[in-house]
């Protein structure tokens, strides 16, 4: 039977501040899942720590709310173990670009078939307003009383350099567009990142009004397979483009693991080894 939107929402009331950008991401995600009609019990949602990390609590899925920065490797393990399920990872800019930043390149090398929603509000929200890797330089925050002195991290060019096989940018203020992007990302075979700008109300580094006007969809003629072009467009800040910058077709981690098994079975006359056979390796 067809799932309804309600099926994806858990009974837990969000504790986000009123008007938090993350509400937009939650509803876009629910819509996308609904349109794809994926039974909630066939979804594993892994989140990191942060306001954005609370997302997984609000989904009626098998939800794993892990530690800070580890959503991607946790999700990778889940997908490798359960190829039959849809696996989502989600977290914030500090979680995914700061402490967890080292994992993305390697998940991309394996092209694990997960969809990673990275919610960027340009601040550490849950811990109440410290600088994140995307807080603009010069901005004063609780940990940068003299102004942030680090350069801002350019997330999309980095994902492209990692050769993540699906790279998109969305905005929580444009729920409709975001829904479509997320749907495409989940449909994509391989690792997909949807980098969502999701303003924080309480620590408004990313201004809501500004957000409404700062985004423009990518030129319709943009060639998703052209990484260099994607790179150039990703560096553009005014306008800031939304949509799918890059998509490439590569074997997924599970494809790669399966082919190992096939190689192994080929050497065993097409069958799996029994433990007795393994024992003989040591006799």
């Amino acid at each position, binding site marked *: 039977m067809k799932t309804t939107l309600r099926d994806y929402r858990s009974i837990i009331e969000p504790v986000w501040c009123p008007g938090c950008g993350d509400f937009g991401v939650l509803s876009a995600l629910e819509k996308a899942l609904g349109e794809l009609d994926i039974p909630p019990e066939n979804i594993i949602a892994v989140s990191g720590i942060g306001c954005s990390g609370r997302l997984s609590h609000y989904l009626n899925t098998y939800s794993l709310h892990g530690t800070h920065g580890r959503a991607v490797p946790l999700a990778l393990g889940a997908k490798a173990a359960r190829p039959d399920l849809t696996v989502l990872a989600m977290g914030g800019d500090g979680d995914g670009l700061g402490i967890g930043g080292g994992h993305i390149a390697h998940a991309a090398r394996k092209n694990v078939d997960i969809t990673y929603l990275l919610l960027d509000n340009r601040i550490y929200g849950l811990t109440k307003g410290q600088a994140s890797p995307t807080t603009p330089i010069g901005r004063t925050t609780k940990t940068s009383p003299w102004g942030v002195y680090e350069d801002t991290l350019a997330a999309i060019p980095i994902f492209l350099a990692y050769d993540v096989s699906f790279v998109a940018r969305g905005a929580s203020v444009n729920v409709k567009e975001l829904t479509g992007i997320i749907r495409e990302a989940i449909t994509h075979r391989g690792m997909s990142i949807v980098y969502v700008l999701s303003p924080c109300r309480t620590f408004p580094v990313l201004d809501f009004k500004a957000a409404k006007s700062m985004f423009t969809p990518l030129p319709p003629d943009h060639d998703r397979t052209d990484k260099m072009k994607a790179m150039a467009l990703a560096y553009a800040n005014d306008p800031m483009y939304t949509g799918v910058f890059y998509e490439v077709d590569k074997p997924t981690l599970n494809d790669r693991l399966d082919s190992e098994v096939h190689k192994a079975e080929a050497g065993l006359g097409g069958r799996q080894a029994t433990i007795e056979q*393994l024992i003989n*390796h040591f006799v």
Partner: protein
Amino acid sequence: EGVISCGELFAQAAARTEFHVFTYITYPAEIRGGFSMIQIRIRDWTIYSMGSAVDYLIVFNQEAYDRTIADLRRGGMVIYDPETVKISDVPEAHFHPVPLNKISNEAAGGKRGKNVVALGLLGHLFDMDPKVLEKLLSDRYGSKGGDVVESNVKALHAGYAAGRDSKIARQVHLGTASNAKATYMMMSGNEAVALGAIAAGCRFVAGYPITPATPIFETLTRLMPMVGGRAIQMEDEIASISACIGASFGGEKALSPTSGPGLQLMGEQLTLASMLELPIVIVDVQRGGPSTGLPTKTEQSDLKFAIYGSAGEAPRAVLAPSGVEDCFYQTIRAFNIAERYQMPVVILTDQSIGYRKATVRIPNLTGIATLDSSVPSENVVIPNPNRIEIANRIEPEELREYKRFKDTDDGVSPVTRPGTPGGQYVGAGLEHTESGRADYSPLNHAKMTRKRFRKLSELSKALENNPPEIYGPEDAMIGIIGWGSTEGAIREATYLAAAKGIAVRHLHPKVVSPLPVGQIKHFLAELKQVLVVEENYTGQFAHFIKGRFGVKPVEIHKYEGVPITPEEILTAIVKVARVIDEDNITRL
């Protein structure tokens, strides 16, 4: 320098002739330089430890000679290559120069054959049927093509010939291969862990190389695909254990092997697993520490960290296999405990058993039931090395008022496998209610803390049902408690002591946390003096024994990066016995 592979081949051959073999391998952390050696002991009954003195020494280079000659037993034999080794004069030693390089060059056209020449030499020395070694070589090198085998066989026979020519007297007879079906495997402790994991139903390993644990991961990358399992190399240890937790959440049994530095990086995620109440198994093959320390040496210095290495209070179990064969069974047991109690289990081995090759009796697999993930927790019985435990994943029809973290009598809650309709839940590292909702209220935290720890007390109760064996005479007044890889040396020391008329009992718990309290009390009750033997500086295990049982043990610590020997332990026993004597207790 080939010396290790020569020793391995010979040991394996001996195993095939139904003899027990026991090796100890050390090698340098640097690829080049340093020195490496292999000791082999062969017996026709079970062997416990290396002992200290060496009977036969085959040395390829000066450094090896200089570092090992002191260990030669009086009257022992040294075979050396006069081209590369200058010998010193050692009273009562028998020296046999054999130009290994030269022979190898002639027979196999290069120095690389040297180790096989030495193998032939050993074959002659121990009167071993050449066929056994030929077979072995073709098994080993067959894949590399016929000519490789051929040149190796040439080198082998050149070795036998050299033995005959140099008129080295034949020693013990190792005889010919038994035609009976093999009853022994020849493997390292690391390989035993890998095989044990697969036997336990583990089909998922995520790891990152680290000496001396790497061979576990290497073995599993080879074997897993053969059994349809998955082996994934991650970018570091944090990612490795994270992937295991993800897999466990998905319903797979998962393992990650590492060593001290890696275990430290895993700390935060190990604690997460305790909070999520997910089973995972982590193997720490201990090495000399702290920090990078002595990567290729052995030490038992991670015990307290393995037990207490978590911020906040997170229950976990810690197992310590006592030898190569035990690595196989304790690994199975680790998975059983992890599944039964839904908690992480840490297996503590060390470099000495991880790299040691020994004969392992082929396990009776029919005794091992196959995995089934659908039986509710009532049907789960206490872990037992010869059974595979059953994970208590529950089925849709049991989902009425399903609470993932239900506060049950034994603390173990039902758990659904993702994909089960209606079984969705949130597993959070935040404190949560029975149903998984985040909740920081005082009484909830208190309740859930007790619930999580109840599993640990249930486990320790369960352990009292199959307590560790006590060895040695009932009426002994001296007892030794040890843990992990020291079992062999301690056992052998008790025999040596017995030979001197000193009766000593020995208790060697395999589960080091929680401890089998009842059995230890029982053991201590009868004793005048207990000794605690371990390979670290601070006496980590002794601390537990003192704190928990209020005794004052004689603590024997060795912290030199090499295994303790029976003789070292014997010395301590003798001292203690003398003291007891002086308190005029009649010796038995």
